[in-house]
């Protein structure tokens, strides 16, 4: 069939860069994010101060890290609503290990991450082997972990263990830009994993066409279980970072389902399909950034709680309609 590909006219390089940008799926969310930044900076000159950017970074990073895992899991066609509870449990696990069993800080953190991975493994096995829908599996796991958390912690916050203070705490969350640095590192790494490795390709295949993936010999269960483990581990990491940042181990880190919910929203805003088969890690970061900017910006401007939600709701609708409009433009313009 006949192919009439548009040839770049004018200065080729700039044009190619532009088309390269416009073809990326994340382009439209990025434009929305930039528009929001411009809007808030115009509303208040405080928006782009270092202090405030740090605030935004700290509000974006942990949820974005969870969102990275959620992207993989959603792309593979599953969902995990227990990850917020893993985030809350992980700092307690570290605390128990250090304060009750005398484990040094770093091994205690590794232990907490390993246990989280184990939780993901259980979620994955129940879902893939015993065929319980992942929504239900992880709902059960959510309550189970909530119960464990409440009974072991007596539902009360505790201080960060002394041995974890200092460098460990600074590097793992308390430092001004620590959480953002980790977040960017993980986003870049997992962006590569999703787009440039077999694991990513197989994750997409499993979510896009599970029958086809099985027929092609992909071990679909292994891929799914792996992604369950990934999301739990990242959730635990985000929880630890938050505990270090707020300098308190709190049963409400993650807010129950809040962090999961927001991470899913970030992923979907960034272009991940709830039904699986497609998604982008960078998009999820941008999606989370958009949500954090909306939260921060209206707070900075000084909107109070009750009207806040009204405005936030409207802002989400308007910016997401703009986002879809832009991405349709993109698709019409691109190939």
């Amino acid at each position, binding site marked *: 069939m006949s192919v009439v590909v548009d040839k770049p006219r004018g200065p080729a390089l700039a044009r190619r860069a532009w088309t390269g940008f416009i073809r990326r799926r994340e382009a439209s969310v990025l434009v929305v994010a930039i528009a929001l930044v411009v809007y808030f900076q115009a509303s208040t000159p405080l928006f782009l101060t270092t202090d405030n950017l740090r605030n935004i970074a700290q509000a974006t990073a942990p949820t974005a890290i969870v969102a990275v895992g959620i992207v993989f899991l959603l792309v593979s066609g599953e969902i995990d609503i227990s990850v917020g509870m893993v985030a809350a449990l992980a700092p307690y696990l570290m605390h128990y290990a250090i304060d009750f069993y005398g484990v040094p800080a770093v091994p205690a953190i590794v232990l907490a991450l390993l246990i989280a991975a184990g939780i993901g493994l259980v979620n994955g096995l129940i879902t893939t082997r015993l065929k319980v829908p992942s929504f239900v599996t992880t709902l059960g796991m959510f309550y189970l972990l909530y119960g464990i958390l409440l009974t072991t912690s007596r539902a009360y916050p505790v201080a960060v263990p002394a041995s974890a203070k200092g460098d460990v705490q600074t590097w793992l969350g308390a430092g001004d830009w620590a959480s953002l640095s980790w977040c960017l590192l993980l986003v870049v790494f997992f962006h590569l994993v999703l787009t440039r490795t077999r694991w990513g390709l197989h994750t997409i295949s499993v979510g896009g066409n599970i029958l086809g993936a099985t027929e092609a010999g*992909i071990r679909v269960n292994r891929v799914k279980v792996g992604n369950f483990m990934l999301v739990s581990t990242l959730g635990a990491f985000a929880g630890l970072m938050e505990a270090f940042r707020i300098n308190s181990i709190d049963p409400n880190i993650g807010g129950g389902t809040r962090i999961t919910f927001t991470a899913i929203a970030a992923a979907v805003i960034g272009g991940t399909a709830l039904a699986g088969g497609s998604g982008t890690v960078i998009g999820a970061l941008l999606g989370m950034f958009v949500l954090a900017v909306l939260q921060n910006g209206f707070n900075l401007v000084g909107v109070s709680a009750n009207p806040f939600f009204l405005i936030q709701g409207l802002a989400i609708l308007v910016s997401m309609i703009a986002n879809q409009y832009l991405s349709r433009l993109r698709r019409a313009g691109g190939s």
Partner: protein
Amino acid sequence: MADALRVEGVAKRFGALTALQDVNLHVGRGEVLGLLGDNGAGKSTLIKVICGFHRPDAGRILVDGIEVVLRSVDHARSLGIDTVYQDLALVNELSVYHNMFLNREHRIGPLLNNRLMRRLAEEHLREMGVDIPDVTVEAAKLSGGQRQAIAVARSVYSAARILLLDEPLAAMGAKEATIILDLVADLKARGDVAIVIIAHNYAQALQVCDRVAILQQGRITFDRPTAETSVAELTDLMVADYRGRRRAAPG
């Protein structure tokens, strides 16, 4: 030397429905077996049993004379069994070239070698006479024949030693079909590949097959060298069965 592939007494039931019953089959290296049969006769089910997708309810499978219990498609592939499925097994969300190398990706270290896969995909498609201008396009956007071409290329250009082709020509144009049959003939000429091909176009089948088997209602009812049969005979066979049933049925 043992047959490359031998199927003995295989049966497969889906709930109350018996799809395969006591199926025996063998293909040697360098041999092409044509598998014919009505719609719903059980051809695809048989292929899926051989490639490790379905577990048979009875019977055994021997590869190079050694009995194997196929645990998964992956396991079968590790034994050199590769399949073109009737449903093509494409992932709509992936690009043409990623689909073509699905689960057989070329890599540099841990990273995919996209450049190589792209180039090879373009080469393969050109060889098959199929025109897909941009192999980075998602498979969802392709025409029916283009999709089938990817699925066929995926297996035909693999290093499979037992190749199962389930209606690989169904959506192909006349020209493309001819080219693919030529490719199959080339593989056969190499002498180390055993091929099973399902086709409804008997002329095409006879053109490349050494032997022809007919599957009817889950049983092999006919298995003869190509030289001893003809399009006319095969057509007759099928229609006779049809007429016979028509008379017997009350409706």
